[in-house]
């Protein structure tokens, strides 16, 4: 299993160097001078100065997958793709240049290498939906660096929710949209099932991240075809480093895993269902 990159112990403060709108989303970039380069699939717990608002929320930090990481002069630039759905994401989306981003990370288990999921794997299919495509951007790049042939399939509800495409600017992707504004009109899983019909599908492994309903559809598709599949999942998290036991995901064999330390990347075979109560948002 790919070793996680451990995080520096303690929360640190990083300068926000970019915050750009893309569709209905934002891409927020910060310079991390103390942390290592993260691996695809890892996440950070984020907060800001002045965290906590009129209603007393947000109180806890919020978890975000790293969408891209670029090492530079004595610092790593971290990109996060975020959607303002509540008090925490709204505050983060409003970050001004020069403001501080408070973060802990990189946390969690990175995506496995294809060969770790299927010995002799000869390709990868990346399936993403909505905001969930964030970790697939850095995954696509690292697979490309490793010379792994890949197909990227992305699904969106509508144009407002397709802002993540920005992260795939310079790469070839196939898209589906529920409103038909881009690519196939329908679900990204339609594209996946077609791809999985292909005779080159046998040696492929699937990586997926997106809304619970999409993840569940992908899980079922792959299970039916006996295809190795790794999901990047979400649940509410208080700590992100295994201390609160709040991020429970039911295991196929009974019991729970802590998504923050045993995930957020999960082998689809390990879990009962990708539909975890309280998790995610579309």
């Amino acid at each position, binding site marked *: 299993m790919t070793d996680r990159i451990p995080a520096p112990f303690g929360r640190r403060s990083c300068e926000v160097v970019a915050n750009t709108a893309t569709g209905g989303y934002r891409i927020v970039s910060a310079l991390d001078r103390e942390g290592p380069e993260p691996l695809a699939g890892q996440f950070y717990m984020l907060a800001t100065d002045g965290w906590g608002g009129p209603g007393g929320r947000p*109180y806890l930090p919020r978890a975000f997958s790293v969408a891209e990481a670029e090492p530079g002069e004595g610092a790593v630039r971290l990109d996060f793709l975020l959607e303002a759905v509540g008090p925490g994401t709204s505050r983060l989306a409003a970050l001004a240049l020069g403001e501080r981003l408070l973060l802990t990370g990189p*946390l969690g288990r990175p995506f496995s290498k294809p060969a770790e999921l299927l010995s002799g794997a000869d390709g990868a299919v990346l399936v993403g939906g909505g905001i969930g495509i964030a970790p697939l951007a850095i995954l696509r790049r690292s697979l490309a660096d490793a010379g792994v042939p890949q197909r990227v399939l992305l699904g969106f509800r509508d144009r407002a929710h397709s802002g993540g495409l920005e992260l795939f600017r310079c790469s070839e992707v196939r898209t589906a949209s529920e409103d038909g504004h881009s690519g196939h009109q329908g679900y990204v899983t339609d594209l996946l099932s077609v791809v999985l019909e292909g005779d080159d599908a046998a040696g492929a492994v699937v990586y997926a991240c997106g809304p619970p309903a999409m993840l569940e559809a992908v899980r079922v598709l792959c299970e039916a075809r006996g295809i190795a599949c790794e999901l990047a999942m979400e649940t509410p998290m208080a700590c992100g480093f295994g201390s609160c036991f709040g991020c429970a995901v039911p295991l196929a064999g009974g019991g729970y895993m802590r998504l923050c330390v045993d995930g957020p990347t999960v082998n689809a075979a390990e879990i009962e269902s990708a539909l975890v*109560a309280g998790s995610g948002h579309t």
Partner: protein
Amino acid sequence: MSRLNSGGGRLRLPGPDLGLELCGIRLAHPVINGSGTFDAIAARRAFGEQLGERFPFSMFVSKTITPEPRAGNPPPRLYETPSGMVNSIGLPNKGLEGFLLDDLPELARLEVPLCVSVMAPSREGFATLVERVGRRDEVAAIELNVSCPNVKSGLIVGEQPSESRALCEALRPLTDKPLIVKLTPNCADPAAVAAAAAEGGADAVSLINTLRATGLDPATLRPWLGAGSGGLSGPAVRPIALDQVRRVAAAVEIPVIGMGGIESGADALAFLAEGASAIAVGTASFRDPLAADRIRAELAGELAERGLERLPPVPLASTST
């Protein structure tokens, strides 16, 4: 903040001496963790060996263990509230055997004294836990969790003085390790329960555990938590915790470990002033895993500002009302 992280719990710091002795256990400073709010084993996976080098607590309190393994409550288990959070974790743990086999050796690698928190649905269950855990040299103290709002145990020990006294009397002979009773805030008179526990032979009390609470899913108007309800923690409860610590400290001679929403050195000092001998950091660690280290450093600063060379020996509060 990192400015304040001056070297972790083990180093002897410049400025006031924060050292103390708690139930015969020597502690470098008065900042420990609240049970179930810091998992040193998982944290080592997340932060690597730095965890040991900068370990922020002067004593480590384990998550509560039970005689049998528990999976914990169904998700969701967390609900954020104004200046706090409600949890319904439900004491997931490997059970006594699993803990002794897998976790205890791992925890023993920490360079601070170890306190094991235990909870059982029956007095016999408590007895087994105390006996088996008490036998292990790696263990410095045992905390009796009679106050978890997230498990329906037959016991209402934590709410009733008589029950608490009886439990302590039954467990006292089974070990010579210090017994710390973790009190519930969900009762009319925690001081009476504390006094009874002390009479029963408890060496210390710790408080507060979480306050029974709930929250709804705004979309469905059903309880958000899988378990329906849970326990409130964080700064929201601090004024309640401080009041209970003060009443308890006034009622017992044994040491009091104060906790509940402590987020700064000033907060910590307030609990010490109200009669706590040591304080625990819980929810604050979720926001910053090194919060306890900052709090310890800020506490040293608060004492220095007041020209104090060591921790207040007598509860300042006892003279104040």
